[in-house]
C-alpha cells in the first residue's frame, strides 16, 4: 500500500516536473521569437542606429 502510494507520488512528481520544465522550453521559444521580431522592427525603422549601436557604441576599445 505504502509503496503504491509512493510510486504514484513519484509519477505525479515526474509528470509535474517534466511539464514545468517543458513549459519553460516553450517560454524560451516564444520569447526568442518576440525578441527577434523586436530586433527586426527596430532594424526596419532605424537600421543605421541599430548597426552602430551593436558594432561601435557597445565597444569601448
Amino acid at each position: 500500500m505504502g509503496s503504491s502510494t509512493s510510486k504514484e507520488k513519484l509519477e505525479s512528481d515526474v509528470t509535474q516536473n517534466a511539464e514545468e520544465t517543458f513549459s519553460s522550453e516553450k517560454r524560451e521559444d516564444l520569447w526568442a521569437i518576440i525578441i527577434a521580431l523586436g530586433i527586426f522592427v527596430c532594424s526596419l525603422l532605424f537600421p543605421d542606429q541599430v548597426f552602430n549601436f551593436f558594432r561601435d557604441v557597445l565597444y569601448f576599445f
Partner: protein
Amino acid sequence: MKYLKHLFVADCQKYIPGFLFCLIFAYLGMNLDRLISNYHSEGIGWATFLYESAQMNYVAILLLGGILIRNTLPIPKALLPGIAIARPIIKPGIIILGVHYVWADVVRVGSVGLVLTAIFIFGTAVIVMWFCKRWGVSDGLGGIMGAGTGVCGVSAIIATSPVVKANPLEMAYAIGTILLFGTLMLFTMPYIGNSISLSESQFGAWSALAILNTAQLVAAAEWYGTEALNTAVLINVARIMFLPLVVLFALWFYVLRAGNQESAQKINKWHLVRDKFPIFILGFFLFVLLNSMNIESLGGPGVVGSPFWAMNAVYTWCFAIGFAGIGLSISIDDMKKAGGTAFTIGMTASAVKMVLGLIVVLVIGSQLLRVTGV
C-alpha cells in the same frame, strides 16, 4: 492563446541578478575580444598568438572565463536562476541568423542534413535504447538517454521523460552525461578540425551531428568560423525538427512494443507531436523566407544601410550572452552526477557518432554542405 500563459512566471525577480551578471560578463568578454583583435591587427605578437594560434575569440573567452569563474569563485546562489536563463538567448540569435540563408541553401544543405540527421538520430536512439534494455538500465533512463544522445540533448530528454516515466534523478544523470560530452567536444573539436584542415562547412556539419546540445554546437561552430556556424545552424534546425518523432519512437519502443496498450491509449499522439515541436524554428524559417523573396526594402546582410544588414550586427551579441550563460553554468560538481551503465552507453554512442560523423562529412566534401546565402 494557449501558449501565452507560458510567457510569464510569477517570481521573475529571481532571474534579474544572474541575468545582469551574464550581461556584464558578455559585455566585458566582447570588449576583450575587440581589444585582442585590435592589437592583432597592429601586429603585436602576443595578441596574434592569442587570436590566431590559441583561437582566443569571444567564444573561448566567455566559455573558458565562465567555467573558471563558476568553479573557482563562490558564486552566490541568488545568481544561478538568472545564469540559467541567459543560455536560451542563443535562440533569438539563431532566428536572426535566418537572414544568412535562401531557400536554395535550405533545400541543398537542409536535405543533406535531413538525411544525415535522420540516420544518425534514429541509429543512435535505437542502439542506445537497445543496449540499455539489454544491460538492465531502467526504461526511464534508457529512454531519455537514447533520445538525448540521438537528437538535441537536454530538450529531447525533457520532452521524452513523461513518455518513458523517467524520474528527476534519472533526468539529472542523462542531462549530466549529455552536457559532459558536449563540453568535452566543444573544447576539443575545433582543435581536431584545425589539425586535419577540415573546411568550415564540413566542421559545421560535423559539430551539428556530434554535439548534442544546441547552445554548445553553436558555440563550437562560431568558434571555428562564420561558414561553420551557417552550416551547423541549418543542419541543427533539420535535426531538432525530428524531436517529436523521437518522442513517438520512445513511446513505441517502451510502451506500445511492450504491450502496454492501456498507457498508450491515454496518450494523444497528435498532441504529443504538436506540443514537442520546437516553435522557435518557425521564426528562423520566416527570415529565410523573407531573405529568399529578395524584398528590396529589407536588403540583405551585405547590403549596407538595410534592415537585414542591421540585424546581422545583433546576433553575435545574442550568442555572447548565451555563451556567458553556458560558461557560468558549467559546474564540475554537476558533471559528477553522470555515471553508471547508462553513462557508459551514452558516452560510447556519442563518441562513435562523432567519429562516424567526421568520416561522413569528409566523404561528402565541402560543396554540398556550404551555405552560399545567394
